[in-house]
């Protein structure tokens, strides 16, 4: 980080010295995306199809955990209530998590995980690209670091999508099922409705997700074509993750993720 959050907050005309709820909410959403996805990917450790893939998914998970730590620490600071990254990660309930529903759905088989990775890493790549020019220096600095990591995540998902899609009959069929299962969560990524207040309060700081749609499609569509996969046309869509509405799966995941910290408050190793 090149600036302290205090400096950033005072340089930001929309902020006040007593905390900035809109910025805290916005940053919490981005941090929760990274945290929840990081935990899901960590569930693959020792279960991946190959030892090499085990390490690849663990590396991606750790990259995301690093992003989550920076974002949630920053969210706690701008919120101004003295909450740390651990307080936010381990002591909030399901309804207080503001992640997109896509990142919380279960891993499924390897194809589902890859489909989810393709969607979210292509999205995060466009998001962090846009955040590079955010008026908030902390967010811009985070984006500059994270974009290199996400670039690799996107490439990893792309390589696997091509191989599974244009592989054997069975891998193609399972990739198709995976895309059908994950595509209903795509629309929510670009829906600004649930963060409209934050966007209005943070001009030049927050990124309107609907502006990312075009570049995301420009990346993902050719990958699907090359992978010989038709793009799914889902007839339902998810909504509400950014205002705390989640699938039934998040609660179970949080129970596992939070139990140690809640059973032994402040425990370290």
């Amino acid at each position, binding site marked *: 980080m090149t600036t302290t959050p205090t400096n950033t907050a005072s340089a930001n005309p929309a902020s006040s010295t007593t905390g900035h709820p809109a910025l805290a909410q916005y940053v919490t959403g981005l941090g929760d995306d990274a945290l929840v996805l990081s935990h899901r990917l960590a569930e693959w450790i020792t279960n991946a199809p*190959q030892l090499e893939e085990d390490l*690849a998914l663990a590396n991606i998970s750790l990259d995301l955990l690093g992003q989550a730590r920076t974002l949630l620490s920053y969210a706690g600071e701008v919120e101004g209530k003295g909450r740390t990254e651990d307080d936010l990660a381990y002591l909030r309930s399901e309804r207080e998590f503001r992640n997109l529903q896509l990142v919380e759905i279960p891993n499924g088989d390897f194809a589902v995980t890859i489909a989810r990775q393709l969607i979210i890493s292509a999205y995060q790549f466009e998001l962090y690209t846009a955040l590079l020019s955010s008026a908030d220096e902390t967010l811009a600095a985070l984006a500059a670091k994270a974009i290199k990591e996400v670039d690799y995540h996107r490439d990893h998902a792309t390589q696997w999508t091509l191989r*599974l899609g244009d592989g054997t009959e069975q891998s193609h069929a399972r990739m198709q099922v995976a895309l059908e299962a994950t595509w209903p969560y795509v629309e929510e990524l670009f829906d600004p409705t649930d963060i409209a207040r934050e966007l209005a309060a943070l001009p030049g700081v927050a990124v309107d997700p609907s502006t990312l749609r075009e570049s995301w499609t420009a990346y993902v569509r050719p990958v699907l074509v090359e992978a010989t996969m038709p793009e799914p046309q889902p007839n339902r869509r998810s909504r509400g993750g950014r205002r705390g509405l989640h699938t039934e799966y998040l609660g179970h995941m949080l129970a596992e993720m939070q139990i140690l910290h809640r059973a032994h408050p402040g425990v370290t190793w």
Partner: protein
Amino acid sequence: MTGPAQRGTGEPVGEPVGGTGTDLTAEGGHGAVPTAGVPVPPVAPGRVTRRGWPLWEVFIRARRGLSHQHVGSLHAPDAVMALRNARDVYTRRGEGVSIWVVPATAIIATSPDEKDPFFDPALDKAYRHPTFYDVPEGVSHL
């Protein structure tokens, strides 16, 4: 996992090679290993085992000015994935600036049987070592 191993040029080079002579590959970075005549467990139809992914040897250059060093091996379905796997397995702690991957079968290895004629004659020829003159200070990596 059943899909990717059969894609592209993914010939199962990790499998034993047929033939009458002694076939050797640099299996797993452990030097020459005969692969002919080695019994292979039966494979159920439609199921690709770990041996279905070819083996690759990984070489990493730690920084500019040094040569690539062999660091180990890994399995990957093709060359593109082998490079990525090498990045994930062997450069997690910033070990390298450049990676080579080589199909293990492309490496021609000496045979343990040939050890004596290959290596023993060099042992008693001390005059081949550059120990009879002083190396100037500041010359590194000689």
